């Protein structure tokens, strides 16, 4: 029978692909955050470049649309001195009927070193990671509902930056948890880093009950969900899910779960508010909160570049 080891790690336990925050040790995650700390200052320098990936090619393969994530990966790779190739797969090969692995083979023949992959199907980056040559690395930039590990890591970086450490924190993830790869990756990262109280908050249509088995407390009531928490992570509610059998309307969602300044008083006074973006003002979050003193949403974006630099430089330094 086959025994498959974690495809993210090589035989020495070193990170060769970043596919999910699940299955990575606290040391591996902390090392990424520590490495990112060194890169944060690069952004403040006159010459915003380090030569760590000089001569390497990073292919941004986005099978699903994205502006922010792709741009920050692009900037991160450029600051590491890599050559960056952006491919709008959604509008090219895939639409001409080329299979995923054929696309990968073709791009591999163009000497790719790192594939940054976003795909609408959960697990697609695993298929790619199992297929590429040993010297090629895969970084998951979001797959279906499954994982968005670099977003989770930049969230961890942000939390650590503002809160110091994880050992006494309460963190609430609010909104469409069901469809959220960010929520899943954050739960795994938080529990691994030692956060004792992770809550997922929303109606039963958007928060699966068996999330409890991932180590999160399921709350259907917002007040219970954010009472006394140090961190609130609001999730984006996709337009197509605002009205239908999951939710009656965006207005009603806001009425029950929208983050307002009044409701934020249920959290700790120094609680921070995060959001993976892009935000829907007046749906999951009121402008007064999004633009308010507790929001650290723009810090997340800035830290995202450093975290993605850290991830790419770490995986590129290890061979399969």
């Amino acid at each position, binding site marked *: 029978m086959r025994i*498959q080891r974690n495809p993210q790690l090589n035989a020495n336990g070193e990170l060769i692909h970043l596919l999910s925050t*699940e299955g990575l040790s606290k040391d591996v995650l902390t090392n990424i955050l520590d490495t990112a700390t060194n890169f944060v200052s690069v952004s403040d320098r006159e010459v915003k470049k380090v030569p760590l990936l000089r001569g390497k090619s990073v292919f941004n393969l986005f099978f699903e649309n994205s502006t922010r994530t792709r741009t920050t990966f692009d900037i991160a790779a450029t600051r590491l001195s890599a050559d960056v190739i952006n491919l709008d797969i959604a509008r090219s090969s895939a639409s001409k009927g080329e299979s995923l*692995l054929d696309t990968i083979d073709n791009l591999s023949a163009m000497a790719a070193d790192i594939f940054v992959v976003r795909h609408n*199907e*959960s*697990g697609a980056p*695993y298929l790619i990671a199992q297929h590429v040559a040993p010297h090629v690395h895969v970084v998951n930039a979001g797959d*279906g509902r499954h994982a968005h590990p670099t977003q989770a890591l930049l969230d961890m970086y942000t939390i650590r930056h503002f809160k110091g450490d994880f050992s006494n924190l309460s963190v609430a993830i609010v909104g469409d948890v069901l469809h959220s790869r960010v929520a*899943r990756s954050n739960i795994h990262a938080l529990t691994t880093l030692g956060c004792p109280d992770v809550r997922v908050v929303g109606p039963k249509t958007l928060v699966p009950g*068996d999330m409890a088995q991932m180590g999160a407390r399921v709350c259907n009531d917002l007040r219970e969900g954010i009472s006394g928490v140090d961190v609130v992570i609001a999730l984006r509610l996709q337009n197509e899910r605002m009205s239908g059998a999951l939710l009656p309307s965006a207005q009603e969602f806001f009425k029950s779960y929208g983050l307002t300044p009044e409701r934020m008083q249920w959290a700790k006074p120094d609680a921070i508010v995060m959001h993976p973006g892009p935000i829907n003002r007046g749906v999951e979050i009121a402008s007064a909160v999004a633009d308010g003193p507790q929001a650290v949403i723009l810090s997340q974006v800035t830290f995202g570049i450093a975290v993605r630099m850290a991830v790419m430089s770490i995986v590129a330094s290890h061979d399969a």
Partner: protein
Amino acid sequence: MKILIKSGRVIDPASGMDAQQDVAIAGGRIVAMGPTIPDFTPEKTVDASGAIVAPGLIDLCARLREPGFEHESMLESEMAAAVAGGITSLVCPPDTDPVLDEPGLVDMLKFRTKKLRQARVFPLGALTRGLKGEILTEMAELTESGCVGFGQADVPIVNTQVLQRTFQYAASFGYSVWLRPQDYWLGQGVAASGALATRMGLSGVPVAAEVIALQTIFELLRGTPARVHLCRISSAKGLALIRQAKAEGLPITCDVSVHNLHLIDVDMGYYDARLRLQPPVRQQVDRDALRAGLADGTIDALVSDHNPVEADAKNLPFAQAEPGGTALELLLSLALKWGQTDGIPDRQVLRALTRGPANVLGQSLGSLQDSLGQIVIGGVADICVFNPTDEWVVSDGSLRSQGKHTPFSGYALPGRVVTTIAGGFVAFDSQ
């Protein structure tokens, strides 16, 4: 052709026979059995010492991909795979391309399979035209062409009134209806609902999808008793309902696939698309219940659920991969493995592959009904001779099927077929 099978342990689950003896075959029939058979001069002798001589296996769910894949000689390879696995009769679902909803298509399939002189092929006709769940097919015509029942393969009938009418119409003529119980709306997922699917971000098929479909079928049957065969049960709850319905006297039978008998959701590891199966494999509690249900006879038959999927259709992200796996050549071995693990006697293991499925087919077998799935003097000579303890490792090279994808790849399994005799002809011989 006169064949003598010498010195094998002959097991016939139907009669309870389990004894070492010789079996003589002539003119396509079993003509004699006994410790020695005098006055019989065989043209071929099969040495079955150390082997089990069983009725040829009957597989109630095997896709041959014809019509649809003629260009790849799929029929030839899959028929060869069947007899290599000891299977002498197989039922194929109607979800071919085009769908088996016209007599001409069934005639052609029967003609092409007969010419190969291997396993007997019993097609299921489509219950509704194009499997669309709207218009009844010409069941009388299709039956004349050789259909043994009518089904929807994996396509549920959404409209309950149409479902009721299929029961009413089929019951008028004594045709059986084969359904895989799954609610259309709840059945849209790609993995079993549960903690694993949630964690992996895969859409789930809840147990309720099976239970609701079963409840609907049973309630309709209470008003219109039609013979219904329930295909590939996947859940403990579904099985419990079937047990009740059987006790109540509803005219139902059911089967389970080798996948649901052996595997559970966590076996998918890191999105292994070989575990993309329909129905999805569920949790430990379901697997345990299905194994117990097959052992106690609530489940009438074990099926391969064979579906030879091309590599291109499997090497895709999990949800996009085509469901199914190759299994014709694994059916016997996986049944024996179940027997070994759960301590089930050989006779009972073989019952799930012979007399059990023959009973499901019942009167639709016509003159074959009295002997198919049995070893009986005067009966048809469909026989599987196999060595029960020989181990083999499942690999691409060890399979004759063009389908190479199976979740059992790399498994070491017990049981190798020595010789398969179908209709009195040697259809497979490893000696």
